């Protein structure tokens, strides 16, 4: 099994930390992982993306030109990465701020209104965990126990009291995921 | 022959009034006759011998006339790249905190190419001793202008005299250094007379002893001559130094026990 994922959105949306929690959960589940961010000034308010690969085998390139899954959180990223999803692959997006919906006919498309839901609950900080939940519903690569460990490893100790909240958000995300096009 | 034996007879410990320290290697110095470096090398090595710290001292020589100081000083030494001695000393002292570490640098080394290393080592308060020989000229390379060359003074690269409008001003780096909170002892000495050499040695002793206190940099400037570079006889050079260098670079302590010395 090898799952190649791109997570892309604005800096500040928690794109990189979502990827890190997913990757660390993979480590806890004894998988090979890589987490390759875009880095530099573009992170501040501009676009941010991270390639996460989870595999049972040694990972070849941490840099990819196509992905099994694209998790897309803003329009620029939709423009850039919709075309990079492998045929038959998965695209998950948050419709908030999306002006042009995905148009590919050869991939599975799901939406998740994580921004709206997080705003409704006044929990904008766990927005990314809602999105992660949506992804894990489709691709249960790591079990909840190892996600818990991944959260413990990724978050600084002083934030460990927030882990239950994050786990709830992941569960919430699983229920929020809406199919738009299923092959 | 008889005379020679007679000389040997009086070589008894109780008769010795002067002896070259064992911490100077028995070989000819490469310094010009009349130059202050020889005396400065000697009083520094005498101090280390008297303190009994030969096995715990690491010295750093610069690029300049004293580049070969490690050949004369019978202690473990490193030859630094031009200007970088304070960076070497910083690392060595931090890695060997119970050792005594000194740099021995000239004016070009310390106050031109190595200004950043000098200022930052002093500002960090590294627990080291810096010996700074200021003869206002680049002696080794043939007498070019130094950062400390006096206004109007002639050198190979200011043959009509230092014009401060074109070449900038002589740098009083010791005054500058004394203002930094990381320096604990800052003094300016000379070694051109026995009295001055004794005072300079006392200052070096204090500068080395201070390392036991762990209070920051001890900085000893020695205003010196360069009869070759100044194109004078040794006596002329010393006289010229008294008349021209000392008014601009006045001798005495600038900072003692971490406190600036007030000018009279």
């Amino acid at each position, binding site marked *: 099994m090898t799952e190649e994922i791109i997570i892309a959105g604005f800096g500040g949306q928690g794109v990189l930390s979502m990827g890190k929690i997913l990757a660390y959960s993979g480590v806890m589940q004894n998988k090979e992982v890589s987490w390759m961010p875009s880095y530099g000034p573009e992170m501040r308010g501009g676009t941010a993306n991270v390639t996460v690969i989870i595999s049972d085998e040694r990972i070849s390139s*941490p840099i990819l030109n196509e992905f099994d899954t694209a998790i897309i959180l803003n329009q620029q990223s939709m423009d850039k990465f919709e075309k990079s999803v492998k045929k038959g692959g998965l695209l998950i997006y948050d419709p908030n701020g999306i002006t042009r919906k995905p148009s590919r006919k050869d991939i599975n498309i799901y939406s998740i209104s994580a921004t709206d839901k997080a705003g409704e609950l006044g929990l904008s900080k766990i927005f990314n965990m809602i999105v992660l939940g949506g992804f894990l519903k489709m691709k249960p690569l790591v079990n909840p126990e190892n996600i818990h460990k991944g959260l413990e490893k990724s978050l600084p100790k002083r934030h460990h009291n927030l882990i239950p909240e994050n786990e709830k958000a992941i569960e919430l995300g699983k229920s929020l995921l809406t199919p738009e096009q299923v092959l | 022959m008889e005379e020679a034996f007679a000389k040997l007879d009086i070589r008894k410990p109780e008769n010795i009034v002067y002896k070259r320290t064992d911490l100077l290697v028995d070989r000819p110095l490469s310094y010009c006759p009349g130059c202050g470096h020889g005396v400065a090398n000697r009083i520094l090595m005498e101090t280390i011998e008297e303190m009994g710290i030969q*096995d715990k001292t*690491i010295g750093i020589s610069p690029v300049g006339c004293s580049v070969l100081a490690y050949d004369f000083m019978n*202690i473990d*030494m490193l030859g630094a790249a031009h200007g970088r001695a304070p960076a070497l000393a910083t*690392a060595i002292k931090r890695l060997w905190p119970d050792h005594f570490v000194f740099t021995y640098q000239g004016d070009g080394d310390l106050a031109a190419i190595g200004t950043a290393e000098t200022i930052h080592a002093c500002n960090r308060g590294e627990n080291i001793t810096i010996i700074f020989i200021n003869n206002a000229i680049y002696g080794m390379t043939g007498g070019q202008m130094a950062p400390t060359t006096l206004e109007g003074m002639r050198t190979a690269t200011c043959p009509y005299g230092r014009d401060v409008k074109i070449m900038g001003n002589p740098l009083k780096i010791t005054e500058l250094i004394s203002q930094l909170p990381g320096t604990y002892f800052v003094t300016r000495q000379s070694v051109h007379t026995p009295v001055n050499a004794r005072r300079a040695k006392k200052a070096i002793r204090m500068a080395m002893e201070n390392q036991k206190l762990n209070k920051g940099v001890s900085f000893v400037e020695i205003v010196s001559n360069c009869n070759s570079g100044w194109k004078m006889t040794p006596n002329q050079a010393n006289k010229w130094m008294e008349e021209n260098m000392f008014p601009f670079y006045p001798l005495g302590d600038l900072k003692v026990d971490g406190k600036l010395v007030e000018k009279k």
Partner: protein
Amino acid sequence: MGELRLMKGNEAVAEAAIRAGCDGYFGYPITPQSEILEYLMMAKPYETTGMVVLQAESEVASINMLYGGGGTGKMVMTSSSSPGISLMQEGITYMAGAELPALLVNVVRGGPGLGTIQPSQADYFQAVKGGGHGDYKLIVLAPASVQEMCDFVKLGFDLAFKYRNPAMILSDGAIGQMMEKVNLFDPIPRRTNEELISQCPWAATGKKKERDHIIITSLDLDPAGQEKVNLKLQAKYKQMEENEVRFEEIQCDDAEYLFVAFGLSARICQKSIELAREKGIKIGLFRPITLYPFPTKQIAALAKKVKGMLVVEMNAGQMIEDVRLSAGNQIKIEHYGRFGGIIPTPDEVVRALEQKIIGG
């Protein structure tokens, strides 16, 4: 044994330094490697292992702090990225000349000049051909994973002390910034001063009665003496070439073609192999791990077995010179490169292979 963590390449370097028993890190911030100094300052090893960590006033000061520390036999290291490494060249050649051990890490970014903060491999020449003056060599290790960023810190120190020569880890911004699973080796205690003095009799540690004073210098004004110094260095480099060549071969057994690549490019080529083999192209990868000493003999042997080689580098064609010198001109050897911080994608590498080697 060991400890599993998800870490950035830069963090792995820092953690490995502490675990390897490093005595001192001296460095200056520059993107994309500042996490190394940040990690060390956060970890405060000076309170645990006693390792000194100091933010210097410049890269010039950092490298000269290494000269000082290395000259006293301590395990010292620095890290920087391309422009900072350029500033260090003076100190590096002095250390090579004075035969001092130290570990340098270059997390390469695109150049020339201030360039970009994105990853590049354009410092190959500088690292392996001697960026400073004089006839000298660095031991150059090219990690292709975060695990190797960790492991090569220890290996780099071992080789640096074995040969009394500076060693460099030549990485890049991507490997520095990406996170992978790392199996951290168990901590090794720092050497005591007594151990150091007995293991490094050449080091300036304070003159003992039973030995002559030690002088650490790269200066010998007598040309005959300086020639002797050079001959000694060359003999040492020959030893390295005989004993320390490291490389990796991936799917070379049945290969008709080869990618030759180091570091991140080699990782990309591994994906390109998957893509090319799906198309029925029999291709493998030869990855030099030591860029100096270079695996010349191994490449010469492979050149007798394959039809062509594509050298993939994030530069305008640097390692290809050494590949061609090794392989001779019996087969086609071409270069594919992206520069200025652009990372080639696996599919474009396959296209380059088809155009330049197979079709060409």
